């Protein structure tokens, strides 16, 4: 048996490295985490950022898992349960962050692939100031072409298939980048190794 990692493992490491560098170049943050410690890492982040209310998807596995850990902490976990019309104002003014999963990522451009659906709706990744995404390191493709060729998203396509590369930004004034325009000001990826 060789002491060198297998080629597929090398490729995986290179993809993770490439993804991280590309996302960091557009002000995204990537934290490597493990399957059992990530809720605690997220709680640390929430405390550090002063996050009071965090929106989560109660029907998802990661949503339930986080709630288990977080329910005895000062952070208020808000489940996305009702149609947006019923609580638009709350979402726009009282939610500090949202936690979602994702469908994979693209290493080349530091892009997350999201397929929001009835259990994890699309406004979670848009309205709150901070978006925290759980990404499985095994689901990173090299390029968008690879992801499209693999077509590993739900069929028929979801109502809204999203590619997200960093927090929102604009260069409309003097071609100078400013982050946090209308979408999230921060994007944190919890990378499950």
């Amino acid at each position, binding site marked *: 048996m060789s002491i060198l990692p297998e080629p597929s493992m090398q490729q995986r490491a290179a993809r993770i490295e490439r993804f991280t560098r*590309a996302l960091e170049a*557009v002000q995204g943050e990537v934290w490597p985490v493990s399957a059992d410690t990530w809720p605690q890492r997220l709680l640390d982040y929430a405390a550090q950022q002063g996050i009071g209310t965090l929106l989560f998807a109660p029907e998802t596995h990661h949503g339930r898992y986080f709630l288990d850990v977080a329910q005895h902490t000062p952070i208020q976990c808000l489940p*996305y*349960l*009702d*149609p*947006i*019309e019923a609580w*638009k*104002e709350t979402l*726009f003014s009282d939610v500090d962050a949202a936690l979602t999963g994702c469908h994979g990522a693209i290493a*080349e*451009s530091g*892009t997350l692939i999201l397929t929001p*659906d*009835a259990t994890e*709706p*699309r*406004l979670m990744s*848009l*309205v709150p100031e901070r978006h925290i995404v759980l990404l499985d390191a095994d689901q990173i493709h090299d*390029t*968008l*072409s690879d992801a*499209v*060729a693999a077509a590993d998203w739900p069929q*028929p*396509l*979801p*109502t*809204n*298939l*999203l*590619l*997200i*590369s*960093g*927090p*929102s*930004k*604009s*260069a*409309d*004034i*003097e*071609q*100078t980048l*400013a982050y*946090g*325009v*209308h*979408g*999230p000001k921060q994007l944190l990826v919890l990378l499950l190794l």
Partner: protein
Amino acid sequence: MSPTPFQQRITRALNNRRAAGNIRRAMLGLMEKRQRAFPDAAALAALRERAASIRREAVAHLPQRLQQLQQQCEANGIQVHWAADAAAANTLICQILQEQGVERVVKGKSMVSEEIGLNSALAAAGIEAVESDLGEYILQLADEPPAHIVAPAVHKDRAEVAALFQQLPHPPADDAIETLTATARAQLRDTFRRAGAGISGVNFMIAETGTLCLIENEGNGRMSTTVPPIHIAITGIEKVIERFADLPTLLALLPRSATGQPITTYVNLIQGPRRAGELDGPQQLHLVLLDQGRSQIAADPALRDTLRCIRCGACMNHCPVYQRLGGQAYGSTYPGPIGTVFEPQQQGLASRGEWLTACTLCGACGEVCPVKIPLPQLINRLRFEAVRPVGSVDSALRGVGSQRRWREALLWRLWAAVASHPRYWRWLLALLHRGRRFTPTHIAPWSDCRQLRRPAAINLRHHIAAVTTNQRRS
């Protein structure tokens, strides 16, 4: 001869040193960013070839693709509307909004909505429309048209934006770009929340899946298309592509060509309105497909290349004329090289033919176009169309021959006769040479910005003859 409105706008643009400086700086920056985004020339060439063939194919089979698109969109629950021209599109959109009792709409960036003058149509119908793209928001406050198709407020610097923002309820404390951006964010959050409908453009429509693809950095596009209960997307019929698998190629080129970014922050692929059981997204999604001269352009096998355009703006960023004038000097929606090709076909050569003469035929636009539109060749072709004898050809183009001036035509004819007969040519040279003392110093308007040349004392032909004889002797 008094200056035309276009010439007057050019003079004004050249005299506005501040805006001209802002534009030139921005364009030089964008050119450099694009260059850095494509480090591998061979890879770029291959990518452009693929993108060109994707767009060429789509435009060549426009009716079939649109039919397929309509079917798929309708299967996805998108309501598809066709608008023959601007007036029809405006009526349609106002009708949809009025039927639903919508009084306030929020808009994502859309050049087609500029093209049809949607904002004034909405205002006339008593519907308030707020632009949410930062650049467009700035211009709405300034009551100005966009100066660039991708970076609409490119001619304004931060101090000007800060001054404009003073009219807001919570004006910015300083003119730092972060402060200005935060001001717009705070201002527009309520607008997104309260809008009865969102109106957006579309970057690509995918026929086989009935997908609307919108790309952006700010998130205002996603807000406009996701938060309000109704989403109306408006775009030109040429934005269709056949396959979902075509998307990576076009997405690799569009943001890199536009701003040097490998990808925009958001690529939003919309497959329809909110489905049963979903908790957000619009309940109604309307797609308004605008013709407005496009099917006529598609009918000409050469001119149809115009419709390949993916609106990245690279041609104007690299255009020496646009760089010095900015978009507002052109006086219509699409400036720069693509506008110089598209607008005369859409609006007619009589009103836009003059734009063609503002081109230097340097060819830079054709070299950077991600879908390889032969812009210089098309400009040349349209120049010919503009000065053809009226009625000499059957053409769907409006205004053929409208730029023809009899004196100019006569001069060219004489020139052609002389230049194609060596004997006449020599006679002309001899004549000019003998009369060199009488060469005029001013021939307006040519000499207004150029120095007139006097023929040399020694004629080149004689000079060469003398040199060769000398060489032979020695």
